[in-house]
């Protein structure tokens, strides 16, 4: 048992105030902005056009630069968001053009008489144009996608490697070279601590079913799968505590499979490592929300996989496992 492991019973005092940390999380954008205006044919096409224009401006005005996506805090996330901005703008232009064409047809060609309109069926040039132009658009979009995806998925030599393991229903963070392991007790939020401005390699895997490692503030997610080790890099650009959550449905308490990522300065990180390396296990307490679940608490709807004893043995397995990669 060379690694300090967090498997202390719930309720022991916690070294950091997690609830406060999440409350102040920058990953919680205020409910800003409007939903994009619901396009809706109106009696007057001018009114429709005006609503569209104002709605569009409103939307653009308060959402630049991320168009509602979470502001990225990693270099990889920044790349992804640039692509998103491009796609959003391209998508918005296409949307507005097609929307206007439909709206024009709907308002302009409302039946005015009994005359039978000209029965045009083909217009070869037009057909070629509306086939070729989308092909070009798509190829351009693909080119940008290709470049960005290589950046986002790049695997530079890491300064720090963390092996992240998802299990029903929690997370384990093992610092391969530092001899530190953090385990969330089932249904409690563990916290991964990483240094800012450093390329952190994550080796992601699952102990049982498929989970999804997702930190909105990183604008990135990846599946944690049994039998597969997924490698990726995150390079945080600003300190703070960020909300993370399992995104791939994984059974009964999928909704509660949350975690936090705390990005700290290099010196703070070194200090954190030394305390956790030498001293006792890090502890977890149930969050307030967890307690507020009422009839949906684990004990009231237990499944074969959700009772406490299973969990304890799960944690024990981790503890004795090798360090992996």
């Amino acid at each position, binding site marked *: 048992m060379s690694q300090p492991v967090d498997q202390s019973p719930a309720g022991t005092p916690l070294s950091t105030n997690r609830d406060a940390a999440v409350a102040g999380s920058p990953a919680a954008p205020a409910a800003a902005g409007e939903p994009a205006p619901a396009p809706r044919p109106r009696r007057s096409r001018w009114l429709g056009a005006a609503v569209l224009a104002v709605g569009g401006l409103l939307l653009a005005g308060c959402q630049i630069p991320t168009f509602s*996506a979470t502001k990225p805090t990693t270099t990889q996330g920044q790349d992804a968001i640039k692509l998103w901005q491009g796609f959003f703008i391209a998508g918005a232009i296409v949307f507005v053009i097609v929307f206007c064409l439909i709206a024009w047809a709907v308002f302009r060609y409302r039946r005015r008489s009994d005359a039978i309109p000209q029965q045009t069926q083909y217009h070869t040039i037009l057909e070629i144009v*509306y086939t070729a132009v989308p092909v070009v658009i798509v190829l351009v979009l693909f080119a940008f996608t290709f470049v960005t995806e290589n950046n986002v998925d790049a695997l530079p030599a890491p300064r720090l490697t963390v092996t992240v393991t998802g299990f029903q229903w929690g997370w384990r963070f093992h610092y391969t070279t530092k001899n530190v392991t953090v385990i969330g007790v089932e249904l409690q939020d563990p916290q991964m601590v990483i240094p800012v401005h450093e390329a952190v390699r994550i080796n992601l895997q699952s102990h049982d079913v498929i989970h999804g490692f997702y930190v909105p503030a990183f604008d990135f997610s990846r599946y944690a799968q049994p039998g597969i080790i997924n490698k990726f890099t995150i390079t945080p650009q600003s300190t703070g505590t960020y909300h993370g959550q399992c995104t791939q449905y994984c059974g009964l308490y999928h*909704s509660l499979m949350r975690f936090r990522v705390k990005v700290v300065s290099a010196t703070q990180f070194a200090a954190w490592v030394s305390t956790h390396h030498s001293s006792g296990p890090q502890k977890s307490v149930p969050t307030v929300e967890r307690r507020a679940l009422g009839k949906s608490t684990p004990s009231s709807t237990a499944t074969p996989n959700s009772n406490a004893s299973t969990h304890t043995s799960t944690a024990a397995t981790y503890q004795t496992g090798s360090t992996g990669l």
Partner: protein
Amino acid sequence: MTDVIAPPAAGGGSLIPGMGTEHVAHAHEDHGPTGLMKWITTTDHKVIGLSYMITAVALFYIAGLLALGIRVQLTTPAGTFISFQQFNQLFTMHGSIMMYLFAGPFAFGGLANYVVPLQIGAPDMAFPRLNALSYWLFLGGATTMLMGFFVGGGAADFGWVAYAPLSTTTYTPGPGEDLWIMALVLTGFSAIFTGVNLVATIFYLRAPGMTMFRMPIFTWNMLVTGILILIAFPVLTAALVMLFADRHFGTMIYSVTGCHTVTGTPDAHACGSAVLWQNLFWFFGHPEVYILALPYFGIVTEIFPVFSRKPVFGYKGMVFATMSIAALSTGVWAHHMFTTGTVLLPFFSLMSLLIAVPTGIKFFNWIGTMWRGQLVYKTPMLMAIGFLFAFLMGGVTGVMLAAPPIDFFVHTTYFVVAHFHQVLFGTAVFGGFAGLYYWYPKMFGRMLNDRLGKWHFWLLFVGFWLTYMPQYILGLHGMPRRVASYPSNLGWQSWNIASTIGAFMIAASFMFLLANFWMSWRYPVPAGDNPWDAHTLEWFTTSPPPHHNYTHLPTIRSERPTWDYNHPQSPNIRHGSGRTRAAPGHSNGHGPGGSGNGAAPGHGNGSGMERREGPVS
């Protein structure tokens, strides 16, 4: 062939309609049992089609109720309306019923069954008994799936995609999951048989003159759908059989339980592959979304021309667009697996982006059809326009999802939920109910009330946007899908409340549909044969059509024989040339009403045309 074509009912015989020549005066004959027995024993494609539609719509209402349960739970961050377990069952069953039991069966079992033989002038489907078998398998499968709610442990709760290893007995041991698998095997066979039937019918039972390129787009789309069914569904059935074997016969195809330690290297010999399930499932699943979309594209492509009083714009381009969508759809499955880290991103990304091209073509076809038309806003047309807007938004966000770096941060969030509802709801609900309003007069000889229909549409339209636009925002803010509770400090609640209000508006709108059914049953308004001045063959026969559909057929010279018959002065023209499509090579006057030659429908008062006789009694 003849003995399968022949309807088994009394007086069957071969009844392929000829070129307006001798027809068996058939309509007065009695065709077997009536009442309930008729519905049970029938092999008539129209009765089977109706059974399908009634069942599918009932299931739609059930799945809609389940969705309301989900939405109620999510109005508060720590909802206590239902337990986590019930919540998981609700979204699984909602998704499963909508996808497997409503959207598909309503389209290819219901409307296609009813409409395709009529549109091509066939007396029935190619294999009427197989057709009946399809329906009963479907009904059996639907019942099996719903049965899950009544067994110990409840209905399946592994999502509509049943990802392994969550779907193995280690994690979901209950009988509800087994029932779900059995149900999909049954409905899968039902779909395969219907696919065979549609393809055979369309290839072999077209009336004289109904060449492939004179078939209505709806029939074209059903042909392509049938082929896609034959490609995709057997894969699902095979994958399900293997899943069942994993669950009960100890195979290790997807299962990984106990075959590796968490940090140790997996022992490849002892391990199944969980990601294999995803590959197989989505190899079925992506074509499936087009199996669910193409029929509805077909429906609106019938509606736009009729209510614009113009032919389909770019008919042939549209056919090729449909075919290329189908072809591409077999090569994009892994765009559902970008975040597995196991797929070749650029390939699947490019293929997925390319699908936008034929889809875009369709948009321009629809807009081009309306352009310079005389648009009539009856309920079917409003629904079809509702479809256009919904699908436009869903399509644009779909292109975004085809870019892996973007997908990485919205995958399995509410962004995806919003996206796929805008495409699936747009097609199956706006498109599907557009079709119902459109063909209802043909099926029952009665109109649906247009005022109630408009109430239905507007409530649905507003509710739809209110439900799903907030979900895009939620997804971008990081809310995962399939969660029964969410943190209260992330600002998600107000968007969720908006979405729930929208869902209730949708529910309210469907009360108007029920009211409409009741009205037409209680206070029938006769529809006549062709209330919309429609174009295609099915509007030439009576409403409802006689037992074998036609006693007479008009001459088929283009893809809209009924229009040609009723408006001989207004044939299709090609832009600029003024040439009729029906008689290529012959020069005509420019524009509608131009004098045609003998071969063109534009000629005089319809010489060379079969004179239509009064409604068959």
